[in-house]
Each structure stands twice: as structure tokens, then as C-alpha cells.
């Protein structure tokens, strides 16, 4: 083996330096909080696990706050993978099936609905919603707040009394938390309850050290520059792998159809745009939904194999390595039905909100603006597109109606400017154009009836 000499920048070394600085501030710093910004796939979970283990081994018990039960269970499993003797407490709700059954096989994990039962364990972990019900306990000296940018300020308010100091980890580029009722009344207040936990934290504690992870290990070299440039213009990152380190090949040659041509384009370039004729459609555009399903069907049928730094041999592209992302739940449901009609049942189909934090080899995305007559703030939200465009290790195929670029030009952002609110850059309008410009270079125009 020869050492890579392609550039003076070593992603591994840069990532290690960043991680070391974060752990130094967390374990030995004087500040009450440390904030870590992590782009997609930059090793956020790895960092959380490592920080937890180091705090625990230094004899400092800690609590971990995640946002969903799936995230909590995932962290418990990762902790046990690294250290199967570490005493971990999983605080859970009293609903049916409150946690992943896999946790029952871990002897070091104690599970309870009451925080008191878990007192004294090295690590106690739960969701923010469950932690909010914990009252009358001695505060923990340390906490780790995972996915802190997806946590709402009012959720942090409910749990912040439980810890003295905390490490806040999250991805600022993903979907902002939202409220189902208007909250303009509090816009501009430093503690706006509908803002993200990190926004409030930093508004009140400007002196806190802020770090960021500089390398995305998930995104391929074809995707990192676009995602970094479009969604993280002031905090750029790069990919951990280089061009040519990853390959996607198919045993069955293309049959010349639109889906096959876009699959080949994406396998080659990392991006593919399957463009259907322009048309205004309902949200569950039947043609676009069918096109998404057909792309997935062909991905599976053509015997794909993914070569990457993870293993010597190419790994078959199986259903569990593919995901479909949509903007709305009814779209996801329609795609699921269309897939079932083609005999595909085990490919994950979900909305951007639910795909956050997940990773696949290939993703197929129904563009949020496809077929729409208008571009609302919901559909323009930067985070939604960022999530959908950054779940893949090899390739991302976007299915979209033609005309989105003109739609964007017809609908410049018109959200009212709120005093005291930091304007987020880039806005969704600009980010959408940036992504479209790149996708346009990998366009396969297709009329489904052909």
C-alpha cells in the first residue's frame, strides 16, 4: 500500500485534530457548554459515543439527550458496541414497545420508566420529551445533547435544569424544528420557544466555544463540494474519500429506458436527474411516483455492486442500502404503494424529517418542488433539500418535473423580515438554484409513455 499523495490535506488528520479539541473543551474546559457543528456524515454519532465513553471513564457520570427514540436506541447500541461492560441506563416511556427489542440482549443496559431506578449508572440516556418529565433529582454534572439543532428551544428549557454543563452536537444545515401554530409573536426574542436550542443557547451565552467537524465520511467526492457550497457556504467541509475511491457498477446493462439511463449517469457522476415533462400536478403526482418506483425497481434488478473504502470486495446493492425521500407523507405513502405494486417492499420510503441522520448507498428523491404551481416556504426550506441531497454514499437520483428553475424565478422569497432574527444563509431559493444547476448537468429527459 502506498500512502495517498494526492493532496497535502489529510482528511483523517484534520478530523482527529477537530475531535481532540472538542474533547479537550468538554473534559477540561471552563465553559458550561460546548457547541459542535457537524455536516452530514461527519462522524457526529461517533463523536457522541467517544465523548460519552471518555467522560464515563474519567469517573464523571453523564446524561444523554437525543430527540427521538430511534436515535436513543441507536446510541445505546453504539455505546455497547464500543464497550459492552459500561453500565448504561435507558430511560423510556410507558407506551407499548417503548424501545428497540435489541436492547434486551445487552446485559449492561438497564431499562426503566423512572430515572430513580437508573441513578448511579455511568450513562443514562433518553429523549428530550421523556427527560422533561424527570423532576426532583440531583442534577448531572455533564450532559450531551444530540441533534441539538433539531431540538426546539422550549424542549431545552424543560431539561436544562437537569445538568450543569453540556456538549451540544448537531447539524445546522438540516431541517429546523417547527411549530404547528404561529409563533411570530416571539420572533426576535433571544428565547423564542420555536427557535432551535442552539440559537437560544448561543444568544444567551455568546462566549461558548464552537467547533465544527471538517470532513464528511459519508458523502462521496462528487457530492461534498455541492452540499458544502450550497448549504454550508461559510463553514465548508470536504469528503473523506477522493474521486475514484468509490464506485457503483451494475451487472445488467442498460435497456435504454429513462430509469436505466439515469441510473448509469448517477453511477458515473454521483448525481442523476430524471426529468419528466413540465406539468402542474397534485402532490402525489402519479407519473412521478411511478417513475421513482421504476428507478428503484431497476436499481435492484440490475445487480448493483458498491465498491468503497469500507471493504476490499464490492458489496451488493441490496434493498436495505437504498432509500426514497419525499417532502410529504402522502407522497411517501404513494411511493410505497407504487413500489409494492412492483413487488418491492423492503426499501425505506420516508419524508426528509424522518430520514435525518440516516445513511444509504443510493437515494432516490422526489424533488420537493416537482409539479408545483408555487414555491412556499415549506418547500423552499434549505434543510429539507439538504437532508434529501445528503443521505447517500454513492449516488443520488432526483426525479422531477421540468420547469422548477422557472418556478423559483417566479417565486422569490417573500417571508416577512423579523427584527432581531438572524437571517440564515443561504436562503432556500439560492440553495435550490445551486442544486438544480448541478443536477442539470446530469439530466436525463424522459417521457414515461415512451
Amino acid at each position, binding site marked *: 500500500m502506498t500512502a495517498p499523495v494526492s493532496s497535502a490535506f489529510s482528511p483523517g488528520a484534520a478530523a482527529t485534530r477537530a475531535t481532540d479539541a472538542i474533547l479537550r473543551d468538554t473534559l477540561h474546559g471552563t465553559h*458550561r457548554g460546548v457547541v459542535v457543528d457537524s455536516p452530514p456524515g461527519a462522524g457526529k454519532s461517533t463523536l457522541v459515543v467517544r465523548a460519552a465513553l471518555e467522560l464515563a471513564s474519567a469517573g464523571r457520570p453523564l446524561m444523554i439527550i437525543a430527540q427521538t427514540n430511534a436515535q436513543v436506541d441507536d446510541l445505546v447500541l453504539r455505546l455497547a458496541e464500543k464497550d459492552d461492560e459500561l453500565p448504561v441506563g435507558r430511560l423510556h416511556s410507558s407506551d407499548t414497545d417503548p424501545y428497540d427489542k435489541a436492547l434486551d440482549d445487552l446485559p449492561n443496559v438497564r431499562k426503566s420508566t423512572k430515572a430513580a431506578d437508573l441513578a448511579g449508572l455511568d450513562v443514562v440516556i433518553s429523549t428530550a420529551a421523556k427527560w422533561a418529565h424527570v423532576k426532583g433529582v440531583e442534577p448531572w454534572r455533564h450532559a450531551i445533547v444530540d441533534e441539538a439543532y433539531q431540538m426546539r428551544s422550549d424542549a431545552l*428549557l424543560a431539561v436544562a435544569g437537569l445538568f450543569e454543563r453540556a456538549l451540544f452536537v448537531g447539524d445546522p444545515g438540516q431541517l429546523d424544528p417547527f*411549530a404547528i*401554530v*404561529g409563533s411570530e409573536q416571539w420572533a426576535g426574542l433571544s*428565547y423564542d420557544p*420555536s427557535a432551535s436550542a442552539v440559537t437560544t443557547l448561543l*444568544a444567551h*451565552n455568546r462566549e461558548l466555544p464552537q467547533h465544527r467537524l471538517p470532513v464528511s465520511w459519508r458523502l462521496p467526492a462528487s457530492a461534498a463540494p455541492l452540499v458544502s457550497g450550497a448549504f454550508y457556504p461559510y463553514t465548508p467541509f470536504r469528503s473523506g474519500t477522493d474521486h475514484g475511491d468509490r464506485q457503483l457498477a451494475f451487472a445488467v446493462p442498460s435497456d435504454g429506458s429513462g430509469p436505466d439511463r439515469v441510473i448509469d449517469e448517477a453511477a458515473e457522476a454521483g448525481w442523476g436527474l430524471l426529468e419528466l415533462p413540465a406539468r402542474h400536478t397534485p402532490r402525489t403526482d402519479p407519473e412521478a411516483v411511478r417513475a421513482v418506483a421504476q428507478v428503484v425497481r431497476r436499481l435492484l434488478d440490475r445487480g448493483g455492486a458498491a465498491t468503497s473504502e469500507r471493504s476490499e470486495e464490492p458489496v451488493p446493492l441490496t434493498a436495505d442500502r437504498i432509500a426514497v425521500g419525499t417532502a410529504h407523507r402522502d407522497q411517501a405513502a404513494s411511493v410505497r404503494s407504487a413500489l*409494492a405494486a412492483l413487488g418491492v417492499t423492503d426499501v425505506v420510503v420516508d419524508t426528509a424529517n424522518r430520514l435525518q441522520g440516516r445513511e444509504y448507498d443510493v437515494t432516490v428523491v422526489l424533488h420537493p418542488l416537482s409539479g408545483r404551481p408555487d414555491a412556499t416556504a415549506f418547500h423552499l426550506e434549505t434543510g429539507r433539500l439538504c437532508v434529501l441531497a445528503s443521505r447517500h454514499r454513492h449516488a443520488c437520483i432526483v426525479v422531477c418535473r421540468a420547469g422548477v428553475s422557472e418556478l423559483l424565478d417566479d417565486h422569490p422569497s417573500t417571508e416577512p423580515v423579523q427584527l432581531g432574527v438572524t437571517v440564515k444563509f443561504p436562503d432556500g431559493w439560492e440553495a435550490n438554484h445551486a442544486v438544480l444547476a448541478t443536477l442539470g448537468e446530469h439530466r436525463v429527459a424522459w417521457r414515461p409513455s415512451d
Partner: protein
Amino acid sequence: MSLIATLSRLEAVRTGRAQPAATVRHRHLSERPLVLVPLITAGEAGAPLGALVGTDRDAPRLLVVPQPRDRDLRFTFLAELADLVLPYVDAYGDVVEAAERSETDPETGKRVKVEVDLCANAPQLIVPSRTGIDFVRLLGRAMRFRRTAEQDPEAPHPAPPRVPLLGRWLTHFGERARVPGSSLLLALTDLLARHWATGQSSVEDQHLGALLAWIDPPEGESGDAAARRAELARDGDGQLLCPPAGPATDPAFDNKLLAPAIERYDRARAALAAAEDGLEADDRFGDLTAAEREIRALVESRTRPTWDAVWRGLDLLRELPEGAHATDRWTRDRWSFTGHRDRIIAGEPPQPRRDDAVTAANKLATREREQARLDAQEALDDPLVMAGRRLAGEAFAGEVTEVVMAYSEGKRPSPRPLVTVRTDDRPHLGERTKVYRSLGGKPQAAEFVGYDGPEGGDHGNLVVLRIVDKMGRGKEPEEGSVPQKGDPVCFTLFEHDQRGGAKLPDPEETPWTHGGPPGEPDAVPLPEQPDPPTEEDTL
């Protein structure tokens, strides 16, 4: 916009008439609402020009500020408004019934039932449009911190007595109006748009005249034409035949009629002030009165059509029977009203300018809970709303085709019957999705097991569910707790009721992440400080 709303609007366009969007009335309407039709001065959002106020549709009281920039005249207006609104509000505060409320006992920390007064009814304010609600809030903010001469003899411009109190009440009404499903303060355009789908956009629905034209067009005219006339038609002098519902006025009215009238009033006032003897003053006072009468007539001419439109809209709404849960929500409004009455009686200070962190978070949590509750209750009260949810895949209705008894595993087996429902709906059911149906007003939960046969077949879907609760404690389910073959059923994928959230810390215990307790020096760092000047600030 939901699919059913889009379809209703398309149908409204085709038929030329608004289509019903509800079969029951989803908001409580008081027997005796107080209607307020305010107007403001162009370019000065906080300067009222006048208002029609009252509870009797045939005898509204007209209040006018002949020179809106005159602070004293504005105070006179507000004092008159207080004399009309406060007695109406107070009347409801005096009639109470006994009710129970659970409170935390300060000594034991336990939740205990306390007997308290609950106002038997509550006042209800109706304004024509959503901007009217904003104006009520604005008036509230402008008045509640005013000091009367009695409170502060040194105050440079003391407010008339009772004006600060009116400000507190209007602030309360304005805040309550932000709670989904509340009815203390309602905008008629919102109310009508909730119950009818017109053939125009929701922005156009904010025009009361156009909205009513779609819902109840004149004999022989289509809603489209009537709405267009309401929006655009002008008389020979260029004045709108249907004046805007306010509080903003039409510029043509401001320029051609109002401005000259105010100018005449100003001149008459100046002339009166310059009068040298009593006889001259008497003469000039007559001129002033005439000028004032002219402005009053102008304001009345612009508010009276809206006033009549509001009452006509209320008549239309009253034709719908009140939804079952609307009464429950009105009870919450009564609690809200009683709570504020108690705070005023207890001598508490007016609502602060800004919410502190804990209050803001509590309000947001309450409103989100009420929104979810409202969405569920409207669907349960109204088959047309439920149809929309069914069309969106969030509910399904059908007939029970089979019931198979089954039991849970474990030491004490409980009934877990499998119920098959044939439905033509296409619900978004995933593995073990929870669904709910209403059983004697309480939600009964079931779990989606799977489809019997292919999904989306010609004869509908056969959905297999496992009922999991509300069947009593015995081994066999209680009578009537399990649907029988042939029963029509409707299950929803959304929950019917909302759990209360976790209790937030008290404001005095606001954590460091949120700036610490309010009142501490750096509690609210951002909005209090002006931006530092930069080079770009000076040209």
C-alpha cells in the same frame, strides 16, 4: 390547502356559489356578542378614526375622533369605548357557577381538587376581519400601561380612568384569539371562511363584502360577479359602494371626503380658539359642531355597511347547529375569562410587554395542543371535515365484515379481538399503525395488523385491526365495546385527545441556557440593545 378544500373551491367556481366546508358550526356564538367595527387613520396605525360598537344590531353606538392626531380627542374616544365595552365585559364576571380545578398544594406538592368560581358565560367580541384582531391587540398594548391621574398625579398626559383596564381586557382578548379554536374574540371573515369554500383565493376571502357575495349572492347573480362588484364597484364620486371592512379605509375616501372634512374641522376649531367675544364664539362653535357632525356622518357611512354585513354573516352562521365539541372549547374560553377576571380583582399588574422564556414556552405548548385537539374535534363533530381527512389518508370509514376473538399472551390474557373493516378509503397505514374510533365519546385504540387480500382492489380494502383497549377488565370484552359484523365504523389515524406536556420550570428557575431568571441584569440581552452604528448607517 387540502385536496378537499381545492375540490370545494373548484366546485364553487363552477356553480358560482360558495360550497359548504362544514355541516356544523365549529365555533360557539354568544347569544349577545359585542360587535366592534373600527376604522383607523391612514398612515397612523395607532390612531383610531372611529368605530361602531354595540350588542344591538339596530342601534350601534358611533364613536368618532374628528381630529385623529389630537391626543385629547383620542383619549375621549378610548374613554367612550371603555364605557361601552367594560360594562358588557363586567356583566359576565358577576354571574358564576361552582366548578372544580386541580391545583398543586403548596405544602404537600400533591395535586388536589379545589372548588372555585367559573363564570357561567363569557363575553364575545366580533370584529369584521383578521386585521381587526390585530387592531384590538394594538389598542390593548397602547392602553394597558397608561397611568391615570389617580394612579400617578405627576403623569404628563394622564389617561381617563378605566382606559388602562380596557387595555388589559383587549390584550387578553387579543392573546386568547391566538389559541386555536377559541371564541372570545373572532374575526367574521375567518369564521365564514372556515365554514364555506368560495371560488376565490384565501387572501381574497379577507374581503368581507366579497366573501358574503360568494356565500349568499343576490338573487339571480353569480357569486363571482357579486364578489367583483363588492370589491370594485364605485359610485359617481368614485367612492366604493361596499367600503372595506377596515380598520383601513379606502384612499379615495381619505383623499376626497375625509381630508377636506378634517380640514374644515381644524379651521373651525382654530377660528373658535381665536374668537374674541362670546357672541363670536357662539357662532363659531356652531361651525365646529357642524364640521364635527360632517365627519361623524362620513365615518358612519363607511362603518354602517360593514356593521350590517357582520350581523348578516352571524345570521348565516347561526343557521348551522353548533358542533358538539365547540361547547367544550367555549368552556375553556370561560375558564380563560374567569382567570383574567381573577387576576384583575387580585390587583395584579398588567400583562408585561414581552413574555418571559417560560411563559412563551407554555403558551406555545398550549396552542400546539389546542391546535391538535381542534383538528381532531372538528373531524369528529363533522362528517364533511372527516371526509377531508379520509381523502387525505388520515382516516377511513367502512363496514365491519368479520370479528374474530383473540387474546393477548401473558399470565392474564386480555381480549384482543381482530376486526376486519371493508373500506373504499385509502388510509396511509404502516406496520402496527395505531388507529382510533370514538366509543361513547372516548377514543378506543386499535392496531393495524394487515390487509386481507390485495391492497387497493376493486371492492375496496379489507383492513384487519386488533382492538387493544376500552373493553373492560374481564377476560371477555364488555357488552358493546367490540364492533359487530355489519356495524359501520370510522377509524382515524390521529389521536382524539392530547396529553398534557411536561411541566416547565417556574420563571424564577429559568436555566442558564435561557438567560437565567427574568429580571436579572442580562436576562434579555438581545432586543433591549440598539444595534451599534456602522459606517453604512450614515450617508
